[in-house]
């Protein structure tokens, strides 16, 4: 498995190169911000007509991780659909690709800010979910402990031998972990943004998606590229 093992709240977790989080003892796979139907929504609003293959691309990768890990439970941390209309417009295409993977798995859809309502897919639809010491929600809250969230699409930059590499990343400190966006058409927010720097402790680290993923001190506001 292409991943970096980490200990978070005394739990052994694996940050996968795909941007998913794997919790072996619970056989649980966590992904965030799939933004399915983003291309459709952009076109609907008169925006550019991007290649309409991001649903296929995102779900193929997700199904691939389900199979590779042998997950029994899958948690999607919200913003799974780009908006409600996109959820409806793309329901058929999504169901066709996802149903086989959902069968036999406990599937949890956490509500996001883009897709708060119910969707026509199976599985549980929850605002938050607590399993043992870990609390799964969409947006990080103040003073949380053992929180695993998404929403911000964090990314970080490294300068190595004259080359700047910018990658989506996990951010983690002792209290919380923020997942990168799993969706194909998703941009990112630099870890140096004040919002993220304000949220994470000074000893926070960033795990950059690479093969295998690499862990560095989180680049913060005011420090410039590492």
């Amino acid at each position: 498995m292409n991943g970096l093992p980490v200990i978070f709240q005394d739990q052994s977790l694996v940050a996968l190169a795909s941007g998913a989080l794997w919790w072996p003892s619970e056989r649980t796979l966590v992904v965030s911000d799939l933004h399915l139907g983003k291309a459709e929504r952009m076109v609907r609003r008169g925006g550019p007509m991007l290649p309409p293959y991001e649903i296929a691309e995102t779900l193929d990768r997700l199904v691939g991780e389900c199979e590779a890990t042998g997950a029994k439970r899958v948690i999607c941390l919200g913003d799974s659909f780009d908006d409600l209309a996109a959820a409806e417009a793309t329901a058929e295409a999504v169901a066709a690709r996802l149903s086989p993977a959902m069968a036999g798995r406990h599937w949890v859809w956490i509500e996001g800010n883009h897709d708060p309502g119910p969707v026509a897919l199976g599985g549980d639809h929850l605002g938050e979910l607590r399993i043992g010491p870990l609390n799964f929600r969409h947006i990080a809250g103040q003073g949380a402990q053992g929180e695993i969230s998404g929403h911000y699409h964090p990314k970080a930059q490294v300068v190595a031998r004259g080359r700047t590499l910018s990658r989506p990343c996990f951010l983690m400190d002792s209290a919380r972990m923020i997942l990168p966006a799993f969706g194909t058409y998703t941009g990112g927010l630099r870890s140096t943004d004040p919002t993220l720097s304000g949220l994470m402790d000074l000893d926070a680290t960033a795990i950059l998606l690479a093969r295998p993923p690499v862990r560095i001190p989180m680049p913060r506001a005011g420090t410039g590229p590492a």
Partner: protein
Amino acid sequence: MTALPPEISGWFDARGWDIHPHQREMLALSDQPCQLLIAPTGGGKTMAGFLPTLAELSDGAHQGLHTLYVSPLKALAADIKRNLTGPIDEMGLPIRVEDRTGDTPSSRKRRQRADPPHILLTTPESLALLISYEDAHRTFAGLQRVIVDEIHALAESKRGDQLMLALSRLSALRPSLRRVGLSATVEDPQAVARILAKNPDPCSVLQADPGPDPDIRMLTTEAPPPWSGGGGKYAMEAVLEQVKAHNTTLIFHNTRAQAEIFFHHLWLANEDQIPIGIHHGALAREQRERVEQAMVNGQLKAIVCTGSLDLGIDWGDVDLVIQVGAPKNVKRLVQRIGRANHRYNAPSKALIVPANRFEVIECVAALQAVRERTLDGDIDHSGPLDVLCQHILIRACAGPFTADDLFAEVRTAGAYADLPRATFDRCLEFAATGGYALRAYDQWQRLVEKDGIYHLRDPRATARIRMNIGTIVDADKMAVRLQKSRGGKPLGEVEEYFASMLRKGDTFLIGGEIVRFEGMREMVVEVARTPYLKPKIATFMGTKFATSTQLSDRILAMFRKDDWPELPNHTRDWLRLQREVSRLPERDRLLVETFPHDGREHLVAYGFAGRNAQQTLGLLLTQRMEEQGLNPMGFVSTDYATLIWGLDQIRDVAPLFHRENLMATMETWLSDNAVMKRTFKGSAIIAGLVDRSLPGGKRKSGRQATFSTDILYDTLRKYDPDHVMLEITRNEAMRGLVDFGRIEEMLDRIGDRIDHTALSRVTPLAAPLFLEPGRIPIQGMANERLLQDEATRLMETAGLKVE
């Protein structure tokens, strides 16, 4: 035929001026559908273009817009307005002249559409915007003539293609519209005429008296030029002497980085404190304008500059042009020299400073070309499809259209005269539905067809389409400012890529100053002044032009001669020694040298295909060698050769250069490659697949809405490999950065005539290749020293004297 009314002829008489013969001829033929005037700078070209308009408007009878003037530069439009308004006022003609560019206030722009002036001065982008309005047919209702200035600068660019498509629209609105092109000296006026004329209309070409031959020489210095590198630092003293001996000198460089470095050294050597300025496109506007003003006021003795000063703006009393570095392209050289003076019938004066030993040969070849009046005629231009896609959207903004009408209209543009219907239909399909194999957006199509008529599904889309008009795709730039508590003085801008490489404490040159990188704040690069450090070389904006085919051929022709009395001795000896040790490259053969050096095996291929193509050749050859287990370790390319080093000796060279092998490697290499992704980004923006990023580096704060076009490229390749955007990207790359055309050209001329010379040591012609800095700049004094030592050793090994 237009007679000259007394107000105008009287104005000429009162000043004791004669009308130039070509001005008279333009007037005589002004009823033709298309005229191209080729005239040197200072030949009254603009007046020749406008005289028929002034004559036709002199009786005050014409209502609305009469003449549209389009120039590639905003500044030129403003300049012409000044130069035209003066004479019009003095002649007392009832003519209103206005300009319209990106800088014109929007209230005036609105008014101009409803109530246009008689003469409107504009740019290709502003014109594209004008024809996108639904009331375009009213704006252009009275239009008689369109004048395209500096058409030589537009003819081979996407801006020119966009302009000609806009003219095809204007001609459809106004079938009697007459076109006039004004051009500097070009090699093939007929090619420019074909691009200008409404296909298949004829175009008459007028050649004005080219004036006396320019006085161009190579600057001879006591110190010979170095073996490699650019910048011309060795000639600093001689350049300063020339500056002192003339009124005003323009010192051209091929890249901004070289201009910066030269300016820096010029000031270090400038003991007399002669006033010298610097001007290039990466400097802050305030700083550029200050230099321009000082120049017009005659306060500067010299300006170090790049192509940003290339076009026909009159900067005052310039009596000398110095070109540092080989001109790479003879046409550009001649046009630059035209800048030297605006006095008709006085010879222009120019000096070329070769930056290294090979450029001595290049300069001599270029000078021969100028004397024989042969310029590069590389115009082989078929209209790019990304520009066509944008034009289809622009047309849709103006109102409903049929595919047949638009196709016929587009084919009247010379560059699109041979456009196949099937290709047009694919572009139309792309503009309408995205053109994807998966029909996902049927409900949200951008263009909807009903009874053969296409129209925009959502009229609100016009705003987005208009916002994205234009064919210049800039790399994302970041402003550079001095660090202060509340935003310091702006110094200029650098590419985001360059900025992202900087680490705190790094130094670089900008605006002739060495600055230290302190940090980034909200998309601004903050720096501090550091007068005493040696800069890390400024690598920003390093566009390197490839040497033209014509110039390469001339150099190869020179190599065939028995001796070279026209070359300085140091260069002549160098070529003689190469002939003695190995051989000189020839035009219809490929010389490949192999030799060991420094524990590695080396291969040099003298393809003379230009920098981009040699670079591609290097990538292809090393990939091929990698597959064959020949352990290549790296390569470096110049305009004339590629040097590859590795662990194993190459014994059988010929198969590496077989066309089939190169093509096969090309296929696999092209598909996943940074060059392709970069090309895709540019074409995707022009064709309207993605939006242009907002000007001034403004970004949405919070979660990003934008993402990399690389992802789109990968997704398309995986799910829709036949998509039209991928085809466009491929074609663009092949004739742009990849320049595969020049590789094919090379393969055509060499055939199977490959001369492999296996040697025991570095050859004279190969030696400078070892000193080519390539992409990674030399950093700090230790490297400098190493390089010097290495240079000495290399030269001695090759049997060459070291100065």
